């Protein structure tokens, strides 16, 4: 156990490019590795993924381990777990980071179990205790109403990281790094859940989780027509429209745009909360936003305790004014 060293990020590719959360973990992982005075490496699993190695190095990695195998072309739990166990055993890292993505959620608990080590999911903050070299893992619990801080004694120390919780480093193509191949070591007969096919969902406009601005509406909008009016502002800001659970439950908008504890978690630069009260369940999905602007006619609404800027007004007056003002600004 004593020879576990360094930070290993489990990389992910989306459409042939390094996933945003991977670059963020490399940024965050760099700080942890520097604090430990140890190396930062990334493991890339897939088929034909070696080309991403240079990008990973430019994003902060000292070492890239490439696990290339046709069985890893698409995500299949059993194959990925076997390949990751193999890679982690070879690299022997002190810390393993994975993204809180559909893959990370699925893979991390199984990997932790096989490695007989503990795991914290969906961390929003990670740090190193200088003395013990322990990974200090902070994650929201109780619907964002509290934050819990964990440590673990087993090695490697594992955590999954929420998207946008960490910042990527500025890309530096002059950085030098080492690329090593690792064999996958997958026993194909042990793949019990097989990937059949991928069905892409057509998204019109900007994806909610990736949007730099989110315009969210609640029950106060009164119906689907209210949400239609949010779209204009969303388009201007190259953003996406979000909604609270009551608006979804009323059938005004599709479930896919729900922001909150049981919906999506977003952390845009700008979150404009319109005619929503700001329940803790909703805030759990957007409290990571850089700047929150609230528009609500009730000055006592909880959202005003969470927002950077509060506009006490009827949305029917404030929203057209806001949209127009932004339009004028963009013309300049």
């Amino acid at each position, binding site marked *: 156990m004593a020879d576990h060293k360094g930070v290993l990020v489990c990389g992910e590719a989306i459409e042939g490019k390094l996933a945003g959360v991977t670059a963020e973990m490399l940024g965050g992982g760099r700080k942890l590795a520097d604090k430990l005075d140890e190396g930062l490496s990334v493991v890339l699993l897939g088929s034909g993924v070696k080309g991403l190695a240079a990008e990973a190095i430019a994003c902060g990695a000292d070492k890239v381990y490439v696990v290339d195998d046709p069985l890893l072309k698409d995500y299949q739990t059993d194959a990925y777990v076997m390949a990751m166990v193999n890679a982690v055993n070879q690299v022997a890292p002190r810390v393993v980071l994975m993204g809180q993505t559909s893959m990370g959620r699925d893979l991390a608990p199984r990997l932790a179990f096989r490695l007989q080590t503990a795991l914290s999911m969906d961390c929003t903050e990670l740090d190193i205790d200088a003395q013990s070299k322990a990974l200090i893992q902070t994650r929201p619990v*109780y619907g964002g109403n509290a934050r819990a801080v964990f440590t673990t004694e087993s090695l490697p120390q594992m955590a999954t990281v929420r998207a946008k919780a960490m910042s990527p480093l500025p890309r530096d193509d002059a950085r030098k790094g080492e690329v090593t191949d690792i064999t996958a070591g997958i026993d194909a007969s042990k793949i019990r859940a*097989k990937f059949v096919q991928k069905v892409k969902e057509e998204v019109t406009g900007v994806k909610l989780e990736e949007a730099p601005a989110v315009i969210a509406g609640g029950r106060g909008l009164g119906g689907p027509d209210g949400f239609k009016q949010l779209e204009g502002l969303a388009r201007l800001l190259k953003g996406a429209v979000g909604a609270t659970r009551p608006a979804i439950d009323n059938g005004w908008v599709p479930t896919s745009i729900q922001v909150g504890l049981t919906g999506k978690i977003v952390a845009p630069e700008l979150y404009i909360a319109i005619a929503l009260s700001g329940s803790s369940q909703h805030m759990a999905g957007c409290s990571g936003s850089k700047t929150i602007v609230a528009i609500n006619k009730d000055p006592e609404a909880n959202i005003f305790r969470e927002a950077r*800027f509060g506009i006490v007004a009827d949305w029917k007056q404030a929203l057209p004014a806001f949209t127009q003002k932004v339009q004028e600004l963009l013309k300049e």
Partner: protein
Amino acid sequence: MKIAVCIKQVPGKFKIEIDPQSGALTKSGTDSMINPFDQNALEEALRLKEKHGGKVSAVSMGPAQAAESLREAIALGADEAILLSDPAFEGSDTWATAHVLSLGMKKLGPPDLIICGRQSLDGETGQVGPELAEMLGLPFVSSVSRIEEVGEGSMRMQRMAEEGHHVVEMQLPGAISVVKEINVPRLPSLRGLMQAKKAAITVWNGQELGADPARVGSQGSPLRTVRVTQPQRSAQREMLQGSPESQVDEVVEKLRQSRIL
């Protein structure tokens, strides 16, 4: 088809109280209910039973009052309910919880399919399902949004992914976790409510499960909670004054100045 559904009782309303001295959580909430994702898990189990026949067992690890949630599961249509309860289980992290559930499943007689919710509303880890599957040596598919087909010894389903969904075929016996997109849970029927009233909830304690005290409760939990804190609210807050138009003008101007717009 023998289906087991894992259920957790969670607070319907969060009310966090933290001991400022020790940083320990003293109260988390009120108005208990079945964890929302577990409601979807139970609903899917009931639909599978209606289509393919079989039996649905609801299983929960928790204190004595978790029996209420199991009674609710019976009201909704579960055939039996089992509570895994022992003071020694207190303080269990996901690992210890999955261990207790795995013992429960073994004692129950291995089901063909275990269905869990994607994550709990309070702990929010999403770890217990996959860990349970690992402990039982079962395949596991997470975030299932639709079951397409259940055949002889295998099932085909859709799991949610960032870019859409994946179609996956899994061997049975196996385990899955479901997302809320999979269905809309039913409400209990009057008959169900009557049945639930008189239904016996089976309770198994640590000894009956053959649990090793070193692997349950806080002793069996590798994750150490250092402290629980309440999040800081935005320190800088500004309420604007004046007409809606002038408030909007002021905010947009401030956003422009700080280069957000």
